[in-house]
């Protein structure tokens, strides 16, 4: 018998199926990553965990390079960059958590109401949603800042940022509300909801238990994760634009503002990369020497702004993996997987 051996798939009858093994390993890796992330996020809020730290302590060196004492160097005011980064992370996380909370609450409540109720108030609310979604959120925040200053507070207190982040949550809520509304409209017709009504369950229980728990939870998680990342960016932006906190509160936006003169673009990063290789060839390690050598006017080159960006990207990735994990689990429960 001639058998084409190329491309054969073989099946051993019996034995553990690979799919189940595979998902088990993946889940434990995910659990470990999640633990690490949460742990580090919590630790970052406790300065003592980082060996104490005062973001405003001036050290000896301006623009110190990377060393053990200063893992990210020091900035132009002789302050340690890493400590500033950690304290800034506190601010960012706090603000973005507030924002996400407001977003989820407003979005879910409004979504459920607009999905369940009928009548003209619902149409008005939906129209308002549509209008809100047209404008860029940052623009809306700036406009609302003007109104707040005019009517409520004086200029420039630290509470501005709190209000603005809450408003950011509110302005982003329509998107979530519309998604939830869509899901509710789809679910309302499903037979098991009808069966729950026939059983005599009150509407409150039907919404809470069946609708939100079953279909809306993945949406809420994914949108919440996305908004958290966005909120961090928005907080940084607002502080950079002098609409947020000021010294002595530490924030990434303030760091960026200080670094304005030293901002670089990706193109410069690539060029610096070339320089790295050149200096390796030239058997030299001091980047600043190289910079001066070539005299490109970037004597104050610093890698520092890259680090927050990379950490944000990393945390966003982790959040999305988490959301995907939940989605997978729910899909398996559904039996549709």
């Amino acid at each position, binding site marked *: 018998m001639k058998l*084409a051996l190329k491309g054969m798939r073989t099946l051993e009858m019996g034995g553990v199926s690979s799919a189940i093994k595979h998902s088990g390993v993946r889940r434990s890796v995910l659990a470990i990553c999640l633990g690490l992330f949460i742990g580090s996020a919590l630790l970052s809020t406790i300065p003592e965990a980082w060996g104490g730290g005062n973001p405003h302590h001036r050290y000896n060196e301006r623009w110190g390079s990377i060393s053990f004492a200063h893992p990210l160097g020091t900035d132009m005011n002789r302050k340690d960059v890493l400590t500033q980064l950690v304290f800034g992370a506190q601010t960012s996380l706090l603000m973005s958590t507030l924002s996400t909370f407001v977003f989820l609450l407003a979005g879910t409540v409004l979504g459920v109401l607009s999905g369940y109720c009928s009548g003209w108030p619902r149409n008005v609310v939906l129209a308002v949603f549509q209008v809100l979604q047209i404008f860029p959120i940052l623009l809306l925040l700036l406009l609302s800042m003007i109104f707040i200053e005019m009517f409520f507070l004086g200029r420039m207190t630290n509470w501005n940022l709190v209000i603005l982040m809450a408003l950011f949550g509110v302005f982003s809520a329509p998107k979530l509300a519309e998604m939830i509304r869509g899901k509710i409209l789809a679910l309302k017709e499903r037979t098991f909801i009808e069966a729950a009504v026939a059983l005599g369950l009150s509407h409150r229980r039907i919404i809470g238990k069946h609708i939100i728990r079953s279909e809306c939870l993945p949406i809420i998680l994914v949108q919440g994760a996305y908004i958290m990342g966005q909120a961090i960016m928005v907080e940084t932006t607002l502080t950079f634009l002098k609409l947020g906190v000021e010294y002595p509160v530490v924030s990434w936006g303030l760091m960026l503002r200080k670094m304005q003169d030293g901002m670089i673009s990706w193109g410069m990063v690539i060029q610096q990369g070339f320089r790295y290789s050149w200096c390796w060839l030239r058997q030299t390690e001091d980047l600043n020497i190289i910079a001066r050598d070539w005299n490109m006017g970037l004597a104050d080159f610093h890698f520092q702004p890259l680090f927050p960006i990379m950490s944000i990207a990393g945390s966003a990735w982790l959040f999305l993996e988490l959301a995907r994990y939940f989605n997978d689990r729910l899909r398996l429960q559904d039996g549709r997987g």
Partner: protein
Amino acid sequence: MKKLISAMAEVPDGEMEDELLVQVEGLRTYISTPTGMVRAVDGVDLNVRKGKVLGILGESGSGKSVMARSILGLADNFPGVIEGRILFRDKGKVENLAHPLEETTLVELGSDGEICKISKDMKAWRKQIQETYRGIWGRKISMIFQDPQKSLNPFWTVGEQLVETVENGTSANMPETIRKWQDVVKWLKKVRIKKADDVIEAYPHNLSGGMCQRVMIAMALGGHPSLVIADEPTTGLDATVQAQIVNLLKSLQKRYGTTIIVISHDIGMISRLADDIAVMYCGQIVEHGPRKRMVDPQVEQKHPYTKALLESLLSVNCDPMRRMEGLRAIEKEVPDPKNPPPGCRFHPRCQVYQNWRTQEGDRGAGTRWLAQCPLKEPPLVKTAESSGIRCWHFYDEPDEESSHV
């Protein structure tokens, strides 16, 4: 390495080899799922007489749909068809439709005779299947699917779909396209659709279930095939519409002499339509024979499963005064196809076996072999009264035991 050979059922009495259109021998189709291997078709032998209707009766999970798809070369899952021959006799030529198995599949047996390893080259298998069935699909063998509204293409109108498959004897001196459309109208009238012009321009979702099924029948029979496989053609339709479809199929079959294999779980429908009936349970044929003998309540020698099916049906349809006795239900559920019971697959639910087991003293006729029920699978044998039955209760030691090995 040796091929597994199962006991073959003999050809029914009085039939000669050249009157068979399709002969399936030892077909095995397995499906690999994450939780185990499903033995969808596990050693099936079938003989389909030319010009007659064969009905395959079985509940869901018995493997009848998978078997139909295996015959048609549509069992695309891994490992799919792993063993067997499908002999198709058409115009004097005999073709084994499962011949790609020789070059692409390798089945190894363990020491106990059970399959322990299956190797298959899926890419080469699919390619060879395409080559084998190219001239067969639609022309020589066609299929009528269940759920007609979902089986028609929802993006095309009915007319556009029919135009590809039907051909009729309209005169050839017209342009090709006009001739084709006239064929379509003629076929729609043949399946008794009155407003053919409206239906041609309709989409499947505009039509009712009965109309879609008629359209599918027109599509299937339009190419004048030798064999039509109908997979649950009337499930989900109303009783009146079902009766009309059954009548339609019967009349078309008589008119064109097409061979039909009907697959269903509806005994009533099969008893109207089929000339021969085969009963499937858990991937195997447990009984087959001519229709008259299978559904006749007087005949005693029936497989316990067939008997129980008939009883659960008859008592629903007939006398309302029998309500007090309760229906004779078959206990428990259909077994998991990944893990069929050892020995005879029906024995946990078999009334005969359970009675024999609880009453130890009964050693009457036919109980000699009942001890084998949980141990060994009974072979499909021909007995004096039936053309093929797979049951230890009716097992007779054949005279020439080793004739088929």
